[in-house]
């Protein structure tokens, strides 16, 4: 009986605003979401296989292109795996530089997410703001690495470029300038009564569920699981500087926003401290790695979205025999089953976006099962629904 009334709403695989094509099928009864299915594979490029045909040095640049937003997390994971395999300890200066890049990336990734989340809620101003404030981060990246994205800073045994003493004051000043912008953004988001209504208690992922699904990163930390690979198995300079793991207990979308916002402050703190230390620590920036012995190695740093995992097996030649990559979204996306089911369609978009998957919408090319589907909606309609709900709330609450 219930089957008959169920409508299938496809989201994906393409959406003009989002990056990767991905495809969701929402099963709904009236306004309520009762089922969700996830299809992917549009973006499968066979990277693990390509890695096996490249030499160890080349793979660093390949893994950088697994995901553009995490274009430092993957190389760090890979280099950690290789250094684990070969039993190498990298020079201290390289550690600081790695941390600086990784944290800059975290800020840029979180800002990017805040912007898109704002857009999904109908707050396009938030979107434009946070992307505007993201630009200085990219400028810092450009100052350090010479490129806005795909920094090519990492290599096995250290980093490829040094941060010059003369550049440090300039970079410090740029980093300091980020803070008032973050304040503004945080204030605007946490003070808005409409956003509170819209996001609090929506899409709750309980601690239990987060644990069962194996959620990682901000998704887990917003549900009260204090896991952070940076603290739990330190790499780069994270055990040398002082910082906090941000957690929240509520597990709703709002908690996920707050965790990300506060994490950016921690990142700024880490970057500043690392830059200060760079002035004193005058070691090499990389050690020469002559040979990779046969063996296995793993690297699992904390990317902006959670823990990335790389596994390498070597047989003593100059290329990996097996290279396995597991990205954090792989763990976080299945939590949709716990968070979206039971919520309304207009909340679905923001809940799906809340774990910051490489998320994508709109139907157009989707094949819809006409037997079950009466009404078809695409990702646009969903975003529109979501935006309208915010508008409604605003009208009711603020009389605007």
């Amino acid at each position, binding site marked *: 009986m219930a089957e008959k009334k169920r409508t299938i709403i496809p989201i994906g*695989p*393409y959406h003009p605003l989002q*990056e*990767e094509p991905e495809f969701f099928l929402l099963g709904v009864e009236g306004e309520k979401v009762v089922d969700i299915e996830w299809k992917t594979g549009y973006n499968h490029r066979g990277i693990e296989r390509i890695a096996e045909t490249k030499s160890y040095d080349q793979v660093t640049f390949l893994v950088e292109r697994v995901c*553009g937003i995490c274009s430092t997390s993957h190389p760090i994971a890979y280099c950690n795996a290789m250094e684990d395999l070969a039993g190498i300890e990298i020079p201290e200066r390289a550690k600081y530089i790695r941390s600086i890049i990784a944290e800059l990336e975290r800020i840029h990734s979180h800002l990017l997410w805040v912007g898109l989340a704002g857009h999904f809620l109908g707050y396009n101003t938030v979107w434009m703001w946070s992307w505007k404030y993201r630009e200085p981060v990219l400028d810092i990246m450009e100052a350090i690495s010479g490129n806005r994205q795909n920094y090519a800073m990492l290599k096995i045994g250290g980093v490829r470029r040094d941060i010059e003493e003369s550049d440090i004051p300039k970079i410090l000043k740029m980093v300091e300038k980020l803070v008032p912008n973050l304040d503004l953004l945080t204030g605007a988001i946490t003070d808005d009564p409409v956003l509170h209504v819209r996001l609090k208690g929506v899409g709750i992922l309980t601690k239990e569920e987060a644990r069962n699904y194996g959620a990682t990163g901000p998704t887990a930390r917003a549900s009260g699981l204090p896991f952070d690979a940076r603290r739990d198995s330190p790499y780069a300079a994270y055990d040398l500087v002082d910082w906090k793991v941000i957690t929240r207990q509520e597990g709703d979308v709002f908690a996920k926003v707050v965790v990300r916002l506060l994490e950016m402050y921690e990142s700024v703190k880490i970057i500043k401290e690392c830059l200060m230390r760079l002035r004193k620590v005058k070691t090499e920036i990389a050690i020469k790695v002559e040979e990779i012995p046969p063996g296995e190695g793993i690297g699992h740093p904390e990317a902006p979205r959670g823990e990335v995992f790389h596994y390498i097996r070597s047989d003593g030649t100059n290329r990996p025999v097996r290279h396995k990559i597991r990205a954090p979204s792989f763990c976080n996306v299945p939590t949709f089953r716990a968070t979206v089911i039971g919520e309304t369609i207009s909340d679905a978009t923001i809940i799906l976006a809340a774990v910051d998957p490489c998320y994508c919408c*709109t139907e157009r090319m989707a094949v819809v099962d006409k037997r079950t589907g009466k009404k078809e909606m695409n990702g646009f309609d969903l975003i529109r629904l979501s935006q309208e709900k915010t508008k409604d709330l605003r009208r009711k609450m603020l009389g605007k």
Partner: protein
Amino acid sequence: MKLKDWAFKKSPWIFHLGAGSCNNCDIELLDCITPKFDVERFGILLVGSPRHADCLVITGIVTKKVLPRLKRVYKQTPDPKIVIAVGACACSGGIFRDGYNMAGPVDRVIPVDVYIPGCPPKPEAIISGIVKALGDMK
């Protein structure tokens, strides 16, 4: 100049399709419409459907799964249209050219008018590419 061409040049609407990219090209493209670059000033607008678009901007190698969809999107875009390949991946396959899941680069599937190389190209490069493409129209 015909009215259609004039309108085309004055405000080209863009449909973006990620055909198996690493996101970076896509982010840089999106960056173009945010405050620092803000191409909307010039009437360039990102639209949600290929049926509304004048330009197709394609990023990434074309994966086998995307291949039929890319062809379909190309057919859905009304003439006159220009196709812009953004990034090394779209132009030549880039770092993924040896992959088993690659059906591209883009010009093997559909005709491409403008190539914007770079990995990823900077927003300035993307804007300049689009402007050049418009200038080439008679």
